[in-house]
Protein backbone atom coordinates (compact mmCIF):
# COMPACT_ATOMS: atom_id res chain seq x y z
CA UNK A 1 0.00 0.00 0.00
CA UNK A 2 2.02 2.93 -1.32
CA UNK A 3 0.37 5.72 0.70
CA UNK A 4 0.93 3.83 3.96
CA UNK A 5 4.52 3.11 3.00
CA UNK A 6 5.04 6.71 1.85
CA UNK A 7 3.77 8.43 5.03
CA UNK A 8 5.03 7.46 8.49
CA UNK A 9 2.50 5.64 10.72
CA UNK A 10 2.59 8.28 13.45
CA UNK A 11 0.84 10.78 11.16
CA UNK A 12 -2.21 8.52 10.98
CA UNK A 13 -2.10 7.83 14.74
CA UNK A 14 -1.86 11.56 15.46
CA UNK A 15 -4.72 12.39 13.07
CA UNK A 16 -6.84 9.70 14.71
CA UNK A 17 -6.20 11.16 18.13
CA UNK A 18 -6.81 14.75 16.98
CA UNK A 19 -10.05 13.93 15.16
CA UNK A 20 -11.31 11.92 18.14
CA UNK A 21 -10.48 14.74 20.54
CA UNK A 22 -12.10 17.30 18.22
CA UNK A 23 -15.25 15.20 17.96
CA UNK A 24 -15.48 14.75 21.71
CA UNK A 25 -14.68 18.43 22.30
CA UNK A 26 -17.41 19.55 19.90
CA UNK A 27 -19.95 17.69 22.04
CA UNK A 28 -18.54 18.34 25.52
CA UNK A 29 -16.88 21.76 25.52
CA UNK A 30 -19.93 24.00 24.96
CA UNK A 31 -18.57 26.68 27.30
CA UNK A 32 -15.69 27.59 24.97
CA UNK A 33 -16.95 30.29 22.56
CA UNK A 34 -15.19 29.07 19.36
CA UNK A 35 -16.29 25.46 19.91
CA UNK A 36 -19.92 26.35 20.72
CA UNK A 37 -20.31 28.55 17.63
CA UNK A 38 -18.62 26.08 15.20
CA UNK A 39 -19.75 22.81 16.81
CA UNK A 40 -21.50 21.44 13.71
CA UNK A 41 -18.57 22.25 11.40
CA UNK A 42 -16.06 20.73 13.84
CA UNK A 43 -18.21 17.61 14.21
CA UNK A 44 -18.52 17.20 10.45
CA UNK A 45 -14.83 17.81 9.75
CA UNK A 46 -13.63 15.57 12.56
CA UNK A 47 -16.06 12.80 11.56
CA UNK A 48 -14.80 12.89 7.96
CA UNK A 49 -11.14 12.89 9.07
CA UNK A 50 -11.90 10.14 11.59
CA UNK A 51 -13.49 7.97 8.88
CA UNK A 52 -10.53 8.43 6.50
CA UNK A 53 -7.97 7.89 9.26
CA UNK A 54 -9.78 4.76 10.46
CA UNK A 55 -9.58 3.41 6.91
CA UNK A 56 -5.82 4.01 6.90
CA UNK A 57 -5.40 2.57 10.39
CA UNK A 58 -7.03 -0.58 9.06
CA UNK A 59 -4.76 -0.43 6.04
CA UNK A 60 -1.65 -0.09 8.25
CA UNK A 61 -2.73 -3.08 10.28
CA UNK A 62 -3.47 -5.07 7.10
CA UNK A 63 -0.15 -3.98 5.60
CA UNK A 64 1.73 -5.09 8.71
CA UNK A 65 -0.01 -8.45 8.61
CA UNK A 66 0.95 -8.91 4.95
CA UNK A 67 4.53 -7.82 5.62
CA UNK A 68 4.74 -10.42 8.37
CA UNK A 69 3.41 -13.05 5.96
CA UNK A 70 5.91 -11.99 3.30
CA UNK A 71 8.76 -12.21 5.81
CA UNK A 72 7.64 -15.69 6.86
CA UNK A 73 7.33 -16.77 3.23
CA UNK A 74 10.77 -15.38 2.39
CA UNK A 75 12.20 -17.40 5.24
CA UNK A 76 10.47 -20.54 3.95
CA UNK A 77 11.72 -19.87 0.41
CA UNK A 78 15.29 -19.45 1.70
CA UNK A 79 15.03 -22.76 3.59
CA UNK A 80 13.56 -24.45 0.49
CA UNK A 81 16.37 -23.10 -1.69
CA UNK A 82 18.98 -24.42 0.74
CA UNK A 83 17.24 -27.82 0.80
CA UNK A 84 17.05 -27.79 -2.99
CA UNK A 85 20.80 -27.19 -3.26
CA UNK A 86 21.45 -29.93 -0.71
CA UNK A 87 19.27 -32.32 -2.71
CA UNK A 88 21.21 -31.49 -5.87
CA UNK A 89 24.48 -32.29 -4.12
CA UNK A 90 23.13 -35.61 -2.83
CA UNK A 91 21.79 -36.60 -6.26
CA UNK A 92 25.04 -35.55 -7.92
CA UNK A 93 27.10 -37.70 -5.53
CA UNK A 94 24.77 -40.67 -5.96
CA UNK A 95 24.93 -40.32 -9.74
CA UNK A 96 28.73 -40.07 -9.78
CA UNK A 97 29.00 -43.06 -7.48
CA UNK A 98 26.75 -45.23 -9.66
CA UNK A 99 28.49 -44.17 -12.88
CA UNK A 100 31.88 -44.95 -11.33
CA UNK A 101 30.67 -48.45 -10.44
CA UNK A 102 29.35 -48.95 -14.01
CA UNK A 103 32.68 -47.86 -15.52
CA UNK A 104 34.68 -50.05 -13.14
CA UNK A 105 32.49 -53.04 -14.00
CA UNK A 106 32.92 -52.28 -17.69
CA UNK A 107 36.71 -52.27 -17.30
CA UNK A 108 36.63 -55.62 -15.48
CA UNK A 109 34.37 -57.15 -18.14
CA UNK A 110 36.51 -55.80 -20.97
CA UNK A 111 39.62 -57.25 -19.33
CA UNK A 112 37.83 -60.61 -19.30
CA UNK A 113 37.03 -60.21 -23.00
CA UNK A 114 40.70 -59.55 -23.75
CA UNK A 115 41.64 -62.67 -21.76
CA UNK A 116 39.08 -64.88 -23.44
CA UNK A 117 39.26 -63.30 -26.91
CA UNK A 118 41.57 -65.90 -28.44
CA UNK A 119 39.36 -68.78 -27.29
CA UNK A 120 36.13 -67.08 -28.38
CA UNK A 121 37.48 -66.08 -31.79
CA UNK A 122 38.88 -69.55 -32.42
CA UNK A 123 35.58 -71.27 -31.72
CA UNK A 124 33.18 -68.84 -33.34
CA UNK A 125 33.10 -66.66 -36.42
CA UNK A 126 30.43 -64.00 -36.62
CA UNK A 127 28.65 -63.68 -39.94
CA UNK A 128 28.39 -60.20 -41.54
CA UNK A 129 24.58 -60.57 -41.37
CA UNK A 130 24.70 -60.86 -37.58
CA UNK A 131 26.89 -57.74 -37.38
CA UNK A 132 24.51 -55.90 -39.70
CA UNK A 133 21.49 -56.86 -37.55
CA UNK A 134 23.22 -55.69 -34.38
CA UNK A 135 24.26 -52.40 -36.03
CA UNK A 136 20.74 -51.82 -37.29
CA UNK A 137 19.37 -52.39 -33.78
CA UNK A 138 22.00 -50.07 -32.27
CA UNK A 139 21.24 -47.34 -34.81
CA UNK A 140 17.51 -47.51 -34.14
CA UNK A 141 16.70 -47.13 -37.84
CA UNK A 142 14.50 -49.26 -40.13
Amino acid at each position, binding site marked *: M*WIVNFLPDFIFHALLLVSLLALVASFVLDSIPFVSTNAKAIQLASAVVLAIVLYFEGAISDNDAWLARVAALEKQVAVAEAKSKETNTVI*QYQYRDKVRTIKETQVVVQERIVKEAAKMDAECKVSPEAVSILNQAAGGKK
Partner: protein
Amino acid sequence: MKYVIITVALLLSACVSVPVERKFPMAPGEIQAPCGNLQTIDPATTKLSAVIDSVVTNYAQYQECQTKTDSWIEWYNRQKKIFESVK
Protein backbone atom coordinates in the same frame (compact mmCIF):
# COMPACT_ATOMS: atom_id res chain seq x y z
CA MET B 1 -14.94 15.18 -10.68
CA LYS B 2 -12.65 15.95 -7.74
CA TYR B 3 -14.53 13.38 -5.63
CA VAL B 4 -13.92 10.78 -8.32
CA ILE B 5 -10.20 11.61 -8.32
CA ILE B 6 -10.07 11.39 -4.51
CA THR B 7 -11.94 8.07 -4.54
CA VAL B 8 -9.66 6.61 -7.25
CA ALA B 9 -6.58 7.77 -5.33
CA LEU B 10 -7.92 6.13 -2.17
CA LEU B 11 -8.72 2.90 -3.98
CA LEU B 12 -5.33 2.85 -5.69
CA SER B 13 -3.68 3.30 -2.32
CA ALA B 14 -4.73 -0.27 -1.55
CA CYS B 15 -2.68 -1.70 -4.43
CA VAL B 16 0.07 -4.08 -3.35
CA SER B 17 2.88 -5.75 -5.25
CA VAL B 18 4.03 -9.31 -4.52
CA PRO B 19 7.62 -9.10 -3.31
CA VAL B 20 8.38 -12.81 -2.81
CA GLU B 21 10.19 -14.29 -5.79
CA ARG B 22 10.81 -18.00 -6.24
CA LYS B 23 13.52 -19.30 -8.52
CA PHE B 24 13.11 -22.55 -10.43
CA PRO B 25 15.69 -25.01 -9.03
CA MET B 26 18.54 -26.00 -11.31
CA ALA B 27 19.26 -29.70 -11.78
CA PRO B 28 22.88 -30.93 -11.53
CA GLY B 29 24.72 -30.36 -14.82
CA GLU B 30 25.87 -33.97 -15.15
CA ILE B 31 22.36 -35.38 -15.43
CA GLN B 32 21.43 -32.71 -17.97
CA ALA B 33 23.88 -34.06 -20.53
CA PRO B 34 22.11 -36.10 -23.23
CA CYS B 35 22.73 -39.85 -23.56
CA GLY B 36 25.10 -40.75 -26.39
CA ASN B 37 24.39 -43.06 -29.33
CA LEU B 38 24.96 -46.79 -29.03
CA GLN B 39 28.23 -48.09 -30.40
CA THR B 40 28.10 -50.02 -33.67
CA ILE B 41 30.38 -52.89 -34.73
CA ASP B 42 32.88 -52.70 -37.57
CA PRO B 43 30.95 -54.39 -40.43
CA ALA B 44 34.13 -56.07 -41.67
CA THR B 45 34.81 -57.93 -38.43
CA THR B 46 34.07 -61.59 -37.92
CA LYS B 47 35.54 -61.72 -34.42
CA LEU B 48 33.13 -62.64 -31.65
CA SER B 49 35.30 -60.78 -29.14
CA ALA B 50 34.79 -57.52 -31.10
CA VAL B 51 31.04 -58.07 -31.09
CA ILE B 52 30.98 -58.86 -27.36
CA ASP B 53 33.14 -55.82 -26.63
CA SER B 54 30.70 -53.58 -28.44
CA VAL B 55 27.72 -55.15 -26.70
CA VAL B 56 29.38 -54.66 -23.31
CA THR B 57 30.09 -51.01 -24.11
CA ASN B 58 26.45 -50.53 -25.08
CA TYR B 59 25.25 -52.25 -21.91
CA ALA B 60 27.39 -49.85 -19.87
CA GLN B 61 26.02 -46.92 -21.80
CA TYR B 62 22.47 -48.09 -21.16
CA GLN B 63 23.19 -48.44 -17.45
CA GLU B 64 24.66 -44.95 -17.36
CA CYS B 65 21.56 -43.60 -19.08
CA GLN B 66 19.32 -45.56 -16.73
CA THR B 67 21.14 -43.99 -13.78
CA LYS B 68 20.65 -40.57 -15.35
CA THR B 69 16.91 -41.14 -15.79
CA ASP B 70 16.58 -42.48 -12.26
CA SER B 71 18.42 -39.41 -10.99
CA TRP B 72 16.02 -37.16 -12.88
CA ILE B 73 13.01 -38.96 -11.36
CA GLU B 74 14.50 -38.68 -7.89
CA TRP B 75 15.41 -35.03 -8.47
CA TYR B 76 11.87 -34.22 -9.59
CA ASN B 77 10.19 -36.02 -6.69
CA ARG B 78 12.44 -34.42 -4.09
CA GLN B 79 12.19 -30.92 -5.58
CA LYS B 80 8.41 -31.25 -5.81
CA LYS B 81 8.24 -32.13 -2.13
CA ILE B 82 10.44 -29.14 -1.24
CA PHE B 83 8.40 -26.84 -3.49
CA GLU B 84 5.14 -27.95 -1.93
CA SER B 85 6.49 -27.45 1.59
CA VAL B 86 6.44 -23.65 1.03
CA LYS B 87 2.90 -22.40 1.68
